């Protein structure tokens, strides 16, 4: 492959230069067409898990119906897991495109492709609309209960929260799709002549008369920037909404203004982690070494390290405030979510979301490798799953029935363990996401051709006196 790993001087020995544009299109085209054995295997496994998940869901619905939110705790957890990962991932592309980092170029498309899984988010969210309890107290205001439970919607505009949440999730999916589409137009236009079969038709339909005129490029870049900023704000808002409606407001008296922030940070952490894992798999087994350089892993893992530290920082900010305040509700919340009821889950969450990835990413040689960041990514993903189980299973079972409308959660409930259907739903959700993603990689090129080619323009190797170094061009 055209990628060169020239022998620089000393520490930048593994420096890496982008492949030359000539062979790229064809190469990517055939890679997108190919159906290698490991891929089909993965697809099959994911599909089986997907079916298991559907089974679990149907069984759960048949058993408990959609009246009570309690039994749906694990479903909420897995929905939130998928939602966090897939909605956060496109943000990585947006953000690093915003900072004009050259190393992001091979990463963008891998990240953007996750927005296709946004459809899954939407589908998985619909049942949750039915199980979410009403804002207004169904029984008339009894002694020591609120007429309207605490939500971010206060008295609530019509249909809040159900309708608005659904609209929000759908809106988010559509926006991320739009970002993907605009970003992929030039590549589709490039491949539309070489591609065959259904891809050819798709590319022709969607690449919308793209000929790469200056005007088209400008509008595409502007569109990406605008949509990116827009998506960013919408995403933060939706994290706020979901984390409040489905976690915080279901535990009476839990007033924790930092929780939406923790939720967002966990989401960013997990999405960056999953991106690194995918990149590693592609590099190791997908035959993309030529496109994905070590420098990408190195820079991205620095960001991941920063996010990991931020995560534990916010967690401590929450913990110390509640511990010090010692209000009855605060002590109950800490007992429930941290020290007593879900203590083990919390411990796993802490270890896998902070301690382990931190211990891995602390070392520069590990960050420079390809496996190190990927390992950290796996750890982070597991930690995030623990986070979601701890929060959402806890929230779903905190206040059954009328207790939900009490001012505070007066007693600390017992933990809720998953039954077989819950397990099915959890693994099924993950499988479904993987399944859809894998399929999408067969339709669209996994590497953003235009970005990589553009990057190749802006950097080259140059000599300064006696040494050879990378020269990075910085437009405006």
């Amino acid at each position, binding site marked *: 492959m055209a990628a060169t790993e020239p022998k620089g001087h000393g*520490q930048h020995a593994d420096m890496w230069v982008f492949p030359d544009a000539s062979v790229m299109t064809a190469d990517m085209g055939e890679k997108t067409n190919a159906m290698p054995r490991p891929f089909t295997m993965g697809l099959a496994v994911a599909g089986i898990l997907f079916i298991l998940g559907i089974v679990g869901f149907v069984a759960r619905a048949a058993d408990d119906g959609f009246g009570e939110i309690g039994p749906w705790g694990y479903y909420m957890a897995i929905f939130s897991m998928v939602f966090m990962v897939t909605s956060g991932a496109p943000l990585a592309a947006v953000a690093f495109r915003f900072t004009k980092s050259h190393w992001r170029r091979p990463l963008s498309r891998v990240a953007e492709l996750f927005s296709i899984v946004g459809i899954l988010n939407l589908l998985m969210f619909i049942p949750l609309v039915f199980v979410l309890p009403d804002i207004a107290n169904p029984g008339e205001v009894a002694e020591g209960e609120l007429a309207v439970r605490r939500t971010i919607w206060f008295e609530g505009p019509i249909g809040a929260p159900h309708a608005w949440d659904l609209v929000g999730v759908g809106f988010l999916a559509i926006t991320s799709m739009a970002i993907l589409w605009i970003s992929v137009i030039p590549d589709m236009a490039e491949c539309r002549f070489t591609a065959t079969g259904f891809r050819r038709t798709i590319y022709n339909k969607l690449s919308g008369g793209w000929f790469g005129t200056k005007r088209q490029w400008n509008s595409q870049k502007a569109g990406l920037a605008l949509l990116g900023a827009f998506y960013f704000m919408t995403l933060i808002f939706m994290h706020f909404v979901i984390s409040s409606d489905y976690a915080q407001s279901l535990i009476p008296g839990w007033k924790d203004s930092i929780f939406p922030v923790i939720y967002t940070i966990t989401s960013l952490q997990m999405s960056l982690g999953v991106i690194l894992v995918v990149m590693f798999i592609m590099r190791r087994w997908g035959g993309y070494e030529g496109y994905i350089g070590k420098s990408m892993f190195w820079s991205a893992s620095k960001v991941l390290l920063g996010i990991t530290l931020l995560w534990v920082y916010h967690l401590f900010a929450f913990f110390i405030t509640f511990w010090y305040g010692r209000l009855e509700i605060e002590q109950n919340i800490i007992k429930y979510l941290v020290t007593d009821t879900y203590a083990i889950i919390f411990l796993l969450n802490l270890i896998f979301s902070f301690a382990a990835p931190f211990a891995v990413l602390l070392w520069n040689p590990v960050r420079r490798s390809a496996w190190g960041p990927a390992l950290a990514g796996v750890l982070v993903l597991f930690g995030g799953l623990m986070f979601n189980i701890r929060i959402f299973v806890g929230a779903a079972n905190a206040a059954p029935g009328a207790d939900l409308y009490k001012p505070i959660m007066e007693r600390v409930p017992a933990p809720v363990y998953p039954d077989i259907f819950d397990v099915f739903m959890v693994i099924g959700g993950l499988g479904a996401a993987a399944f859809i993603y894998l399929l999408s990689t067969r339709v669209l090129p996994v590497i953003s051709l235009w970005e990589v080619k553009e990057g190749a323009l802006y950097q080259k190797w140059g000599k300064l006196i006696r040494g050879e170094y990378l020269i990075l061009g910085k437009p405006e």
Partner: protein
Amino acid sequence: MQEGKPLDSRQVNRELLVSILNSPKWFFGAIAVLGFIVLVAMSSAGFMINQGFGVTGLNRPVMWGFFITNFVFWIGISHAGVMLSAILRLSKAEWRRPATRAAEILTVFSLMTAMTMPLIHTGRPWRTVYWIYTLPFVPYDYARGIWPNIRTPLVWDPSAVYTYLTSSILFVLVALIPDFAVLRDRTTGMSHRIYGMLAMGWQGNARQWKLQIIAGVLLSALILPVFVSVHSIVSWDFGMAVSVKSWHSTIFAPYFVVGAVHSGVSAVAFVLIILRYIYGWQNYIRHEHIDALARLLIVVATGWFYFFVMEVVFGFYGREADEIAVRNLQFTISPWNIWMMIFVGMTYFLPVSIWLSKSLRRNLWVMSLACIFVNIGMWLERFLIIVPGLARKQLLTFDWYTYRPSSVEWIIIIGTFALVSMLMLTIARVVPLIPLYDIKEGEILRTEIKIGRVTVPAVFRED
């Protein structure tokens, strides 16, 4: 990216050492005026300590006022230094070069100034001095086995702030060694000897330079966590207070940190514009740098606004009468609601709308105005968090009261601003506020790439 024409080493020395080797008339005048203000402030502080706190506007519900506000404000300003130099060093941003040292030195001085505030705000400063400033050597009442109570945020504070102060001073000094060497070679007599001592026999061989570079990155990475912890802990002074409903919010730590970065970076931008003006450093502090700062500030400000909205929303979310009372005071009762509007406008909407336009943010006058706005707004923010919370502490409405600062407090506050400006001017006489070697390095590393007809500015990257 890199505008401006290439500079050679001699020119850099000549132009950047102007602040040290020349001694203009206005300098002594300015120092005299500022020094006078500082003296007045100090004497009024002495008067207050001598008379007791009756001379301030504090009262029973509102036990904290201007001094704590000012303390938080200056701590916030101090967050500019590391924010810029560390984050920009780590992200290898080229435009950091002229900004870093001014920012770090501003950090040091604003921290020192900030720490005078809690000292004079205590009822018996002489005891406080005995307790805090002798902490490492003679703990408070150690003879009776009483050590400072580490359960209180008031002990976390000094531990964090002095950690930050020590590290920043060391950071600045290490980064100064090569420039001390330059000064050693340019000066004679006494100053030659002093600079020689400070330069520690620096020769500038490959090994020293390599470690100098490593020092920059490594220390940045180490100071960054400290910098985050400092303002978090300052915010916990308030966050831990369970009785003041509007303070007892979990979001305070990141909220304060982002706010601090916001005010600090704007302060640095302002300082840079001033330096460019009084020392004629147009070749070094170029529009592109101010532009980059402004673009960074848009992001920081928006992040800050997000936290602000979160804090307010969850203030109402609780539906607790005592908290609603505070919010009611903040948002609906004059003059607080007017101050609130001014604060939000000056901190976010006005400056961000300025920074969004390229021509405006490259106009130095408008830019410095925006930075001043931000800092006024951030000062108000702290004030509007601290005082209304106390004025409507709990539901014993019989005790509710408000707060009107006295002239003594005003004078002392103004004095702190004079103090920081005086210190900055003085240090500019002693050390170069723009790192010479960093600029020279930038000159060596800058190159360009030809793509078709255009030439794109580029840089050599070591890794």
